[in-house]
């Protein structure tokens, strides 16, 4: 029994460190990269780490998945609440990632770059100088009045 307990503690330590490691890796990717798609990938890693952590918290030793088999004897089950949370969180994550990618596609169409630094430069220049529209954007009548 003692051996089982220490094995379990080791397993949980590995699971928690893995989850926290994913969070840190995602945050590092988001902080250090300048490419928008890589920042989104970092966000996905971060989200995976958070999900993994929550599911790992619900883990129990020698427990089965929380599904009742009628007629079978009742076994201890893992915590169903984090699983239910993660179930929806994964789908929300897909939706958020798709929205982020959609915005990224638009940014590339309008500005022609995905580099955060180049984008910031362009945006500050556009704010200071006369509004110079990039080519694919629709023409704005205000610029004609100004000239």
């Amino acid at each position, binding site marked *: 029994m003692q051996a089982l*307990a220490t094995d379990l503690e080791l397993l949980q330590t590995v699971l928690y460190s893995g989850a*926290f490691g994913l969070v*840190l890796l995602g945050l590092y990717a988001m902080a250090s990269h300048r490419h928008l798609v890589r920042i989104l990938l970092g966000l996905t890693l971060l989200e995976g780490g958070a999900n993994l952590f929550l599911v790992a918290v619900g883990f129990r030793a020698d427990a089965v998945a929380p599904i009742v088999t009628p007629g079978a004897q009742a076994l201890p089950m893992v915590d*169903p609440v984090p699983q239910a949370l993660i179930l929806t969180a994964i789908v*929300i994550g897909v939706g958020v990632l798709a929205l982020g990618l959609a915005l990224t596609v638009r940014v590339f169409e309008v500005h022609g770059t995905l580099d955060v630094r180049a984008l910031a430069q362009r945006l500050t220049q556009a704010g200071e100088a006369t509004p110079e529209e990039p080519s694919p954007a629709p023409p704005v009548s205000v610029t004609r009045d100004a000239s």
Partner: protein
Amino acid sequence: MSSRTFASLVFTLGLGLILASVMQGLPLGGAPMQVGQAIVAQAPEAVGTANIVTSVVLAYRGLDTLGELTILFAAATAGGLVLSGRRPSHATQSQAGFILRTGAGLLFPFLLALGAYIILHGHLTPGGGFQGGAIIAAAFFVPLLSRPESPFNEAVASVIEGAAGAMFIVIGLLSLTNGGSFLEPLLGTGELGELFSAGSLPLLYVAVGLKVGAELAGLLVHLGGLGEAG
């Protein structure tokens, strides 16, 4: 090493130390599980689902699931809004090869059947509306990937999406008329483990599945610049 990389490293290491100290305080060897224990004990009788996760998603946390559907709806709508008005890019996209086209056509009915199975058995086996909806979205998206010019009717997809969302809310409102609370399970519990059991929960999961499927398919189509965008 640029200053940005250095700053990111320092930030990540600092946060890692904080997380490591948090981990010292985590209960190892089985976290306490009071709510989960109570739900596992009473859910099979009270809600009637063999899959207890489903009873948490739809019965105990039904309102949260509605909120999550709303987030997904907002994300899908915003994605469509951001990407609308672009020219469909299938003029520039070449057709896939013969094997991929045939395979995608063959996969379509099987993916659809698998998605429907996973949605309908969400209260019995692992799975449910969210997972099955994702598979149904894939069923519609795979043929589009192999044949960019094949039609995807966005009007029908948005009607399905709206009707499914309305169905979820209407089922929730119906429980109010019986004197219960919003989204309380209706129609009794039935026999545990049967396909027609757990009252209104399978209906709710059908609504979730249709909504998730239509939304994800629409998002993917927009993102790929396929179909009749705009």
